[in-house]
């Protein structure tokens, strides 16, 4: 994985010093909260309901064991012993003191990490495929491009005060594991006539006005990606509305200008930018790519597994994914124990995962947008020993992609913007479906919960989505069906009137009962919904 050189380290160290200075000026009263706000936000520090929340960037979701151990250390020393992995492949801490924040950033910098641009109206952490480098279907490892974009977007002078936050995803497979088309810019690396380039999608997003990003360019060569993205952003920054924050995202601009007109303006800007030499040279991409070189796999390893322990066999079937290298496997660690808080891990668990990565996964982990952790390089022969340790520490839940593998935002338990709680709903649904064994019977079902319209829990993209709303001062939940953040990207449709907390659990069960009755061989919930349409589901839920 990528390692900082002196330049990178100096930039991050300078940021720590700058933020230390800003916090000091705030504490001395030289900065008002209003002036301080955007500065702390550029460093991932939010003021939440009960305390400050710090969001730490995990660039494209890739971590070393040492970095993961530091995340555990921060949870223990500065938080109440927990970290929360997010849908942006980051980690956040909910109980941070402002005066500690500079020290935390310094600790992070000591392991080549930071919280730069994890919030605020700037280019956020670049997201990517959690199976990058080990997926059999990729045209290239997307992470070198993601790292190139990380560096380009860090402290970008022109694009640090954008109309709104700006999210970029890079993938390199036809299968989309990163919800690429629900980003402000989605790049899909493709090969044309043996040359690598990117399909460019602009103007996707969730929130109040969810939109699946349209394709703006079918192929931009790998040497021009930076200047093309720069052109996309300049058109946005020049126009982007500041008067209404709900209309300030690029998706609204693309929609209002029309795809054709936006594309034309980007092309014009791009023609101008081409002459400016904004793209790093090939050697720079090659330098970065060398950090992501294929590891020294052992050859001649067996693909056999001893499946005599049925619990282990179940975990393998559910949580282990095929690896491109014979003898190896991709192990998914579910952070969705039944009744737990989706995406949460204790300091002990985080440190254990760091150890396991060092021992079993070539010192590497990934964070997924579904709020789970991946060990990408596990020898099949080690899977049983790995599972034993996960199992013994509350990390062995065999539920990847099941209805209990719920994405949920922090909701009203933590978030100052929330209308309703997300976590208790997730816990109730998981408990209901696990206790009657329906989770296994149903198979793949992506359920996603947001505590308000901002959609941090990706409810629009859930096969089943749940949105917390405020109805006359009480928490109410709307149900959506038919969304997907994958390559068959679609947005869910609201079923009808909302429900209270118990009602929404019942409604989800009614929808899945109908699915179990109606499904044909091999159909997932989403497929059955798409075949039958909303009407029978409405009937089952409200009838």
């Amino acid at each position: 994985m990528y390692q900082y050189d002196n330049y990178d380290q100096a930039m991050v160290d300078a940021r720590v010093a700058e933020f230390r200075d800003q916090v000091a000026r705030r504490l001395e009263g030289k900065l008002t909260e209003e002036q301080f706000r955007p500065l702390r936000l550029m460093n991932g520090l939010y003021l939440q309901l009960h305390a400050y929340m710090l969001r730490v960037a995990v660039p494209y979701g890739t971590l070393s064991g040492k970095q993961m151990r530091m995340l555990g250390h921060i949870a223990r020393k500065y938080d109440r012993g927990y970290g929360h992995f997010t849908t942006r492949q980051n980690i956040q801490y909910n109980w941070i003191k402002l005066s500690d924040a500079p020290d935390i950033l310094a600790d992070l910098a000591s392991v080549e990490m930071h919280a730069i641009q994890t919030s605020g109206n700037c280019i956020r952490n670049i997201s990517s495929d959690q199976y990058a480098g080990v997926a059999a279907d990729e045209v290239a490892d997307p992470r070198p491009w993601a790292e190139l974009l990380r560096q380009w977007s860090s402290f970008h002078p022109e694009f640090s005060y954008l109309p709104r936050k700006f999210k970029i995803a890079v993938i390199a497979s036809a299968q989309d594991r990163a919800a690429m088309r629900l980003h402000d810019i989605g790049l899909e690396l493709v090969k044309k006539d043996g040359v690598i380039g990117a399909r460019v999608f602009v103007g996707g997003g969730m929130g109040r006005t969810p939109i699946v990003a349209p394709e703006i360019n079918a192929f931009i060569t790998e040497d021009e990606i930076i200047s093309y993205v720069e052109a996309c952003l300049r058109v946005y920054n020049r126009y982007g509305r500041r008067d209404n924050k709900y209309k300030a995202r690029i998706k609204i601009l693309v929609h209002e200008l029309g795809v054709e007109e936006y594309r034309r303006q980007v092309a014009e800007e791009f023609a101008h930018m081409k002459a400016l030499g904004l793209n790093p040279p090939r050697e720079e991409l090659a330098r970065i790519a060398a950090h992501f070189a294929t590891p020294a796999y052992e050859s001649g390893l067996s693909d056999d597994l001893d499946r005599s322990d049925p619990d282990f066999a179940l975990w393998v079937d559910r949580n282990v994914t095929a690896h491109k290298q014979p003898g190896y496997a991709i192990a998914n660690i579910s952070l969705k124990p039944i009744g737990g808080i989706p995406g949460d891990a204790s300091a002990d668990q985080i440190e254990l995962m760091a150890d396991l990565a060092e021992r079993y996964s070539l010192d590497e982990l990934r964070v997924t947008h579904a709020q789970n952790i991946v060990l990408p390089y596990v020898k099949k022969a080690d899977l049983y020993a790995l599972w034993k340790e996960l199992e013994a520490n509350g990390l062995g839940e065999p539920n990847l992609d099941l209805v209990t593998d719920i994405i949920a935002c922090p909701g009203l338990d933590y978030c100052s913007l929330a209308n309703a709680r997300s976590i208790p709903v997730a816990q109730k649904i998981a408990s209901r479906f696990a206790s009657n064994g329906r989770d296994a019977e149903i198979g793949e079902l992506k359920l996603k919960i947001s505590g308000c319209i901002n959609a941090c829990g990706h409810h629009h993209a859930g096969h089943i989505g749940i949105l917390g709303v405020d109805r006359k001062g009480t928490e109410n939940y709307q149900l959506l069906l038919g969304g997907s953040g994958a390559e068959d990207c679609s947005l869910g449709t609201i079923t009808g009137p909302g429900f209270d907390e118990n009602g929404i659990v019942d409604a989800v069960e009614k929808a899945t009962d109908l699915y179990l009755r109606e499904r044909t061989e091999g159909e997932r919930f989403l497929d059955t919904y798409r075949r039958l349409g909303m009407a029978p589901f409405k009937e089952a839920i409200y009838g």
Partner: protein
Amino acid sequence: MADFITLRSDEATQEPVVTLESFAGQSNATAVRIEPGEDARLLLGQLDRISLVEVNFPAYTDGRGYSAAQILRESGYTGELRAVGDVLIDQLAYMRRCGFDSFKPNAPLDDADVEAAFARYPDVYQKTIDGRTPIWAKRHEDA
């Protein structure tokens, strides 16, 4: 405390500043002010008669002026480019990178803070019109 900061060696322009709208009609005007919603490109044909462009930042959160500055500099404008309005310490370095070379903040800035802000980052990751060599180029300079 400083209420005007310049990085230029020449005298600050004292000409009266006119709006972008009236600029085209006033052939003797040499100083113009751009508001956030206005298109800096409208000036591109007239750059050689301009000695000062003021770009207004009514609120520091409105970053349209950064693109306006870049566009003017990329098109060859060499006169004074002044950021006015809600200009705070923490935006100065980014503004300079986009081509601003003078600053007229609403609230005076502490000289030491200004100096520290300009000196903070040892290097830059992007190529802009400020001519600084980006990190990606330095990395391959010796090679």
